């Protein structure tokens, strides 16, 4: 007898199911089920994955969902004396989709009540809404969560009968199945007997299901843990909230036949119903919106005209006839392909967003493979000229691929990006556009924390465990739960601890909840809510689809990424600040292309705060690469990536760059492709071109090759392509050795490579940031500080770096600061010198509204003193006043005032004296408190604002350190390579990149700059606690001073006591 499981929930029922859809499918395959339905709680979150997995193994994937409905009463609840009485929840109707109308109805129904939700997961459909959307759907009476169980348990047989009759009225008698489940539970069996009687009386078919919540019995433990997480209880006290047994797993037809031997028709009906469910997600009905064009135009003709205009303005301005002609030809080729693929609408919609941004003065720039397209360049979507740079269009779009192109737009993070997003909503309607979801899954830290809670571990222990669980890229042999548990002093022989460990491992990668993708938007012709259910995002005014970006791509839904880039916001702010304070206009498109001092700065790796080139690894390679022109910067951005590093391309390139190795090519025919990168392939486009030249691949085939070898690689597909490559190369007369070399390069590189177009887009921003930092340091630093958090370094490091570059940074001051950091002007030797004033945004805990009131207040009339200040700004809380006093921001409010005087005065002023004494004049009172010491000032600065504008903490103990032969960062360049050296400083970054084989890189900052330390894996294990926790370190080791790249190879790491100030570090990101 055949059996189809028609009621299975996955972990996408968020904490009510314990297996991934893929695991359910593979188990179903093992059990030889011909079809299966995924029916998750209030959504089709897991359906794309379920669909893709089922398709790959030949199982028919039915679509459905359990829909929360009000009007059928609440779910049966355990008795009230139980410790953990479950909250009241309405019953859920398991609905299965028969056809596309049914699917659209299901999506719309769920969207309808989801968008009403005030609290996540609490939305319910009304009976009226269900009735309106019933067409094309089949309704089951459900298991524990269903209407039958609830009415039988709460009110008895007659009520149950009337409820089922209600269902038949809504869905029609043919579309209601009385569900029977058997989980070896006596109460359930009692209900089943009533259900059988009911079905008989009402003439409804019975349907056997197993109410599946996990693939195999073993996963019932995970479901129990999830239940505890959901109800915020411990396993020990969860009682009857937990599963009674582990019977809710997938079963074979034989098992089910045995279980339902007395009800064969219930078994038979599963196949019968399955055959009625024609719909799968293959028939999604998605259509990208059509762009509205003026009468007499088609989208193609309209696009052609806009592109033509762009060609004239962008290429025409370059006054290079050859280039113009090449561009024209390329554009014709691209447009022809776009027409053939019916993609004009997509390009026009992206163009429209760009146009909106330009009109609103929002900085926008396309990134990614779109920069390979001359059409995109002409439409103003991207800023890199693909024709001039000879970029490969096929990397972006090809006829063979049959996929939507991917255009990512970088926008300034914050309000500006929000404006663009809201424009898309407004343009396509709330139900026509939405953000893609981001499925939050359990990772090491979240698993350790939540499982620990369920098992009853205390908060302190969990905090300790979280602090040692490594969240960095590199996972060394010691980065496992076993070691982490040992580090916090767990006894691994204790069964509870072992169980904890095991559960942490098992829970990995299971979905926890749905978040929102940072910028992916999907739009749809017609109603997006009929394609996928929509939900409100946490951020007001945003709507999210139930699928993540990969699912959307798998389902053929086109997306536009509107990504927020902190540096874009910085650049945008610089464009405002520079004309105002330097009296010079600045245009990012017109920056001098090869400004020598900027490249000199880059060559010195003096790049703190610059886009893409500020990381520790970038700094280490910059002096070797020594960029002198824009293309060098493109290479620089691309080279510190897993691709070139894993593919072992970085070192050969650097050697050739430094002329220590001869430039050679695997085959002379590859020279044109690899010439720019000195014979070493660094970009994906080169790889594609290599395949095209060496093995006669077409552009599309080459891109297909890249994708086949990418992340989702299939062994079979790879072999096929490799065979084709070899055949092509043999035909072209490549020797077997050369073939081998090329194939190695391609296979190792395809996976991690970086598109040249993307690198070029980023390099543009990197150059702009370097240029602005060098020429307009005050404006750049102010903008950087106003757009934190971003980049690699903490505000304290950015400020200190700016000071080292000669910028005068003034502390927060109640009389001068604004919410943002601002530029002030000082006159030195008759010259106007811009200085930076730190803004109130850096006062811990202060709100912008309060800061604005201070600014407004002092504009009205100056503050007379602390009492006046407190009285006139009633929004200021005592904590704000204390912090302002601590960081010295109130020192200007009186003569001879120091931080402690301010603290002394605010303590009194903050206590309300009542209306009677409200108008007494300012009390000029001397404080009996002594002034803060240097150390106290440092602690107060870091505690109150996360930075200090005064001397660096290390400068206070330099004398003592010098006696210990500890060198300053600036001294290291003068020391010879190989010398045993000591350095010390504040740890500002700890890194353990995935490509560095467990090596840890530390950046130590002192008053003269940053010294770099390399810690080998063994040493790291030895000093792990010191390295991970201490804020100041002294490191001893051999100095490596090669090619102007300086670092210390640590052989000893010691904690040093410099200050108790709360300095910050950028760790393991």
């Amino acid at each position, binding site marked *: 007898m055949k059996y189809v499981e028609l009621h299975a929930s996955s972990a996408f029922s968020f904490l009510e199911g314990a297996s991934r859809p893929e695991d359910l499918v593979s188990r179903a395959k093992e059990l030889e089920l011909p079809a299966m339905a995924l029916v998750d709680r209030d959504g089709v979150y897991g359906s794309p994955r379920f669909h893709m997995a089922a398709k790959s193994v030949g199982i028919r994937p039915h679509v459905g969902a359990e829909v929360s409905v009000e009007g059928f009463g609440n779910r049966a609840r355990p*008795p*009230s*004396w*139980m*410790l*953990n009485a479950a909250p009241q929840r309405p019953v859920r109707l398991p609905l299965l989709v028969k056809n596309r109308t049914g699917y659209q109805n299901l999506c719309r129904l769920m969207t309808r009540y989801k968008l009403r939700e005030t609290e996540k997961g609490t939305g319910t459909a009304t009976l009226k809404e269900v009735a309106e959307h019933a067409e094309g759907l089949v309704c089951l009476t459900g298991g524990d969560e269903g209407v039958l169980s609830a009415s039988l348990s709460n009110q008895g047989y007659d009520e149950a009968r009337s409820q089922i009759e209600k269902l038949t009225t809504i869905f029609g008698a043919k579309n209601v199945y009385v569900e029977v489940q058997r*989980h*070896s*539970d*006596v109460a359930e*069996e009692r209900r089943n007997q009533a259900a059988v009687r009911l079905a008989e009386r009402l003439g409804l078919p019975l349907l056997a299901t197993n109410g599946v919540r996990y693939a195999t019995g073993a996963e019932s*433990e995970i479901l*129990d843990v999830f239940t505890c997480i959901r109800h915020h209880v411990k*396993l*020990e*006290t969860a*009682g*009857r909230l*937990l599963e*009674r*047994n*582990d*019977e809710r797993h997938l079963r074979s037809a034989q098992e089910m036949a*045995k279980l339902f031997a007395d009800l064969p028709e219930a078994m038979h009906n599963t196949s019968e119903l399955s055959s009625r469910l024609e719909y799968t997600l293959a028939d999604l009905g998605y259509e990208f919106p059509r762009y509205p064009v003026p009468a007499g135009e088609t989208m193609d003709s309209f696009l052609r005209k806009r592109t033509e205009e762009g060609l004239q303005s962008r290429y025409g301005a370059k006054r290079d006839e050859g280039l113009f002609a090449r561009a024209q030809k390329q554009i014709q080729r691209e447009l022809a392909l776009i027409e053939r693929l019916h993609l004009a609408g997509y390009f026009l919609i992206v163009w429209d967003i760009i146009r909106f941004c330009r009109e609103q003065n929002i900085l926008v720039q396309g990134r990614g493979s779109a920069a390979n397209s001359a059409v995109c360049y002409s439409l103003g979507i991207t800023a890199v000229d693909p024709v001039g740079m000879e970029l490969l269009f096929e990397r972006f779009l090809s006829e063979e691929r049959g996929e939507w192109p991917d255009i990512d737009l970088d926008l300034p993070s914050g309000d500006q990006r929000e404006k663009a997003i809201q424009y898309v909503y407004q343009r396509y309607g709330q139900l026509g556009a939405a953000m893609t979801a981001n499925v939050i899954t359990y990772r090491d830290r979240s698993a350790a924390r939540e499982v620990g809670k369920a*098992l*009853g*571990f*205390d908060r*302190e*222990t969990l905090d300790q465990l979280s602090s040692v669980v490594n969240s960095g890229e590199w996972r060394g042999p010691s980065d496992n739960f076993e070691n982490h548990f*040992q580090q*916090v*002093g*767990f*006894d691994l022989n*204790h*069964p*509870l*601890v072992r*169980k904890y460990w095991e559960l942490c491992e098992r829970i990995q990668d299971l979905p926890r909840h749905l978040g929102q993708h940072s910028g992916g938007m999907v739009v749809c012709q017609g109603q997006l809510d009929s394609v996928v259910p929509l939900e409100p995002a946490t951020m007001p005014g945003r709507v999210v689809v139930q699928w993540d970006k990969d699912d959307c791509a798998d389902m053929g839904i086109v997306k536009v990424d509107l990504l927020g880039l902190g540096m874009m916001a910085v650049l945008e702010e610089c464009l405002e600040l520079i004309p105002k304070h330097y009296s010079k206009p600045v245009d990012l498109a017109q920056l001098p292309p090869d400004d020598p001092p900027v490249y000199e700065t880059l060559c010195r790796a003096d790049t703190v705060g610059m886009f893409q080139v500020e990381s520790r690894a970038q700094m280490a390679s910059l002096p070797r690469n020594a960029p002198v022109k824009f293309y060098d910067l493109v290479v620089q951005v691309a080279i510190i990536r897993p691709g070139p590093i894993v593919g072992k391309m970085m070192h050969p390139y650097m050697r050739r760059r430094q002329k220590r190795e001869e430039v050679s090519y695997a085959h002379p025919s590859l020279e044109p492709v690899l010439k720019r990168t000195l014979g070493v392939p660094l970009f994906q486009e080169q790889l594609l071109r290599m395949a095209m030249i060496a093995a006669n691949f077409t552009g599309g085939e080459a891109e297909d090759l890249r994708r086949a070898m990418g992340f989702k690689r299939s062994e079979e597909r790879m072999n096929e392509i490799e065979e084709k490559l070899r055949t092509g190369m043999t035909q072209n007369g490549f020797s077997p050795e050369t073939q081998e070399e090329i194939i190695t390069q391609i296979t190792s590189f395809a996976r991690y490579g970086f598109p040249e177009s993307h690198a070029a887009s980023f390099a543009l921003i990197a150059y702009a940031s370097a240029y602005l930092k060098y020429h307009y340091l005050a404006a750049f630093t102010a903008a950087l500080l106003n757009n934190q958090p971003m980049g690699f370094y903490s505000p304290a490091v950015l400020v200190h770096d700016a000071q080292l570059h000669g910028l005068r940074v003034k502390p927060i001051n109640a009389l001068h600061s604004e919410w943002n950091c601002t530029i002030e002007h000082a006159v030195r030797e008759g010259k106007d010198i811009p200085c930076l004033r730190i803004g109130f945004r850096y006062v811990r805990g202060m709100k912008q509204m309060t800061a604005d009131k201070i600014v407004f207040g002092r504009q009205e009339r100056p503050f007379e003193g602390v009492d006046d200040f407190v009285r006139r700004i009633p929004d200021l809380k005592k904590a704000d006043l*204390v912090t302002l006093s*601590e960081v010295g921001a109130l020192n200007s409010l009186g003569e001879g005032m120091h931080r*402690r005087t301010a*603290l*002394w005065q605010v*303590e*009194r002023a903050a*206590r309300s004296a009542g209306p009677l004494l409200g108008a007494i004049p300012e009390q000029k*009172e001397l404080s*009996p*408190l*002594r002034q*803060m010491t240097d150390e*106290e000032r440092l602690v*107060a600065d870091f505690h109150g604002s996360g930075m200090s504008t005064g001397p660096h903490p290390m400068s206070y103990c330099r004398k003592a350190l010098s006696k210990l032969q500890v060198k300053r960062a600036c001294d290291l360049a003068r020391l010879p390579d190989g010398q045993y050296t000591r350095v010390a400083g504040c740890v500002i970054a700890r890194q353990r990149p995935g490509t560095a084989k467990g090596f840890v890189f530390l950046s130590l900052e002192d008053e003269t700059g940053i010294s770099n330390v390399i810690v080998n894996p063994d040493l790291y294990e030895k000093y792990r606690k010191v390295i991970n926790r201490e804020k100041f370190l002294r490191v001893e080791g051999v100095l490596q001073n090669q090619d102007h790249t300086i670092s210390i190879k640590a052989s000893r790491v010691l904690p040093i006591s410099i200050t108790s100030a709360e300095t910050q570090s950028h760790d393991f990101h």
Partner: protein
Amino acid sequence: MAFASLFAPDFPFQAVVRLEPELRSRAIAILAGTPPLARVFATNRQARQLGVETGMTKVQAEAFQDVTWRWRSLSQEESAYAALRDCAWTISPRVQDGARPEGQDFSDTVVLDLAGCEKLFGTPQKIAQDLQRVASEVGFGTNVAVAGNISAAVCAAKGFAGVTVIPAGEEAVHLGTLSLEALRLPFAVVQTLHRWGIRTCADFAALPEIAIVERLGQEGLSWWRLAQGAENKPLIAKDFPCDFEEHMDLDSSVELLEPLLFVLNRLLDQVSTRLRLHILSIAEVKVTLTLERNDSKKKEPIAHVRTLRLPVPTRDGKLLLKLLRLDLEAHPPSSPVTAVSILAVPTKARSQQFGLFLPLSPDPERLEVTLARIQNTVGEGRVGAPVLLDTHGPNSFQQNRFVLPEVNEQHSTNEKRTTAVMRIYRPPLAAAVEFGEGRPTFLSCEGVRRQVLAFAGPWRRKGEWWSETPWAREEWDVEISALRPKVQAGHDVDIESETALYRVYRDLRAKRWFVEGIYD
């Protein structure tokens, strides 16, 4: 007016070593919490010098050699504190408990009023030394301070080692050198003072009074006076205790009588010493032995209680020990002993005050007597009130002590009642079940084999998979000829013709069958 304060530093540690003086010179760490979450709760100086810190897990702390571990015992700490209080009562009838250290659940200070004591016991210096000596007799190393007010005495005892006598009017000078921590102020206030750069009592005391009120309010004034040693609070005297208890948790369980008597001897010594301080004798001694549980599923401890009512009050430790030995030989504990408590009732009579307006209810003492009589009849541990537990597990109820229900307690009536009642066999009857074609066919139990006439099942349950005692079972309801005849006086019953419905189950872990009960 003079007050003395008696302070036992590292009190949790002292509570342990007072009963095990041989540990005094060793590095000790006290552990608290349930394994595997056990952490170091307190340490002594020697352990701290080795690097053991409070908050470390047991595994971390075990890395330190030469450290002796003891588990924290609240009962032991409670009796230790009572002993500390006894020391104070030897000098003054007016004794008050000191405040608990911030965030802790124990107290380590006792305060006493010395008014009039000078005539009886000599100078404050001598009194303080006497107090320290008496405390040392009951096993405590203490700091004693005498001052003109309670707060100054308490602060000085905490801040200065040994005996400190602060002459009247010199409180501010003496306390001035102490850090703010000695004042045990609320954390937020200490933070504010630290922000002001105030570190010592003298710094704090030097601030102007009005300015303090303006900034910290009336409470602030009180703390400020505290720092000056001028805070004058009245002493709220405690009542003298009506019994004396000593408790000791044993590191490893004791099976034999001899080592048990060794422990009892130590406890009796302590009780006797304390009673001697008050010139009292023992009228009755109750020994409670906490026994090890074989069945680790249940958490409540088993207690073996023996009470000796002495015809003549005595403080003779040897005699008491002898009597206890005889009693325990006659009534030995059934399992190894894990903790010992001794409660001594001095000769004072118990007094009780009844409320005028309390509703009439059974006299609690008579109720106790009745319950005791029932218990004598049905056996120990078989009297109580059953309470259902929230679990899928078998035997899911616990037996609470019977208490008279509240008059106004109402039972919810809208919850469904169960339709079938099952009488449970305790313990369950071992059985064997034969199966044919996946269904039960025969049940063998108590030497008889019955054919299964009808059945329902299987019903499966499992639970506590995360613990050391996971369980899983498969249950069947079977109808068979009755296993036992029904008790019907005067009639012979044909068992074969009478059928009954039984619940049988298979313990899936032990792989054994049992008859759990019979349906009514």
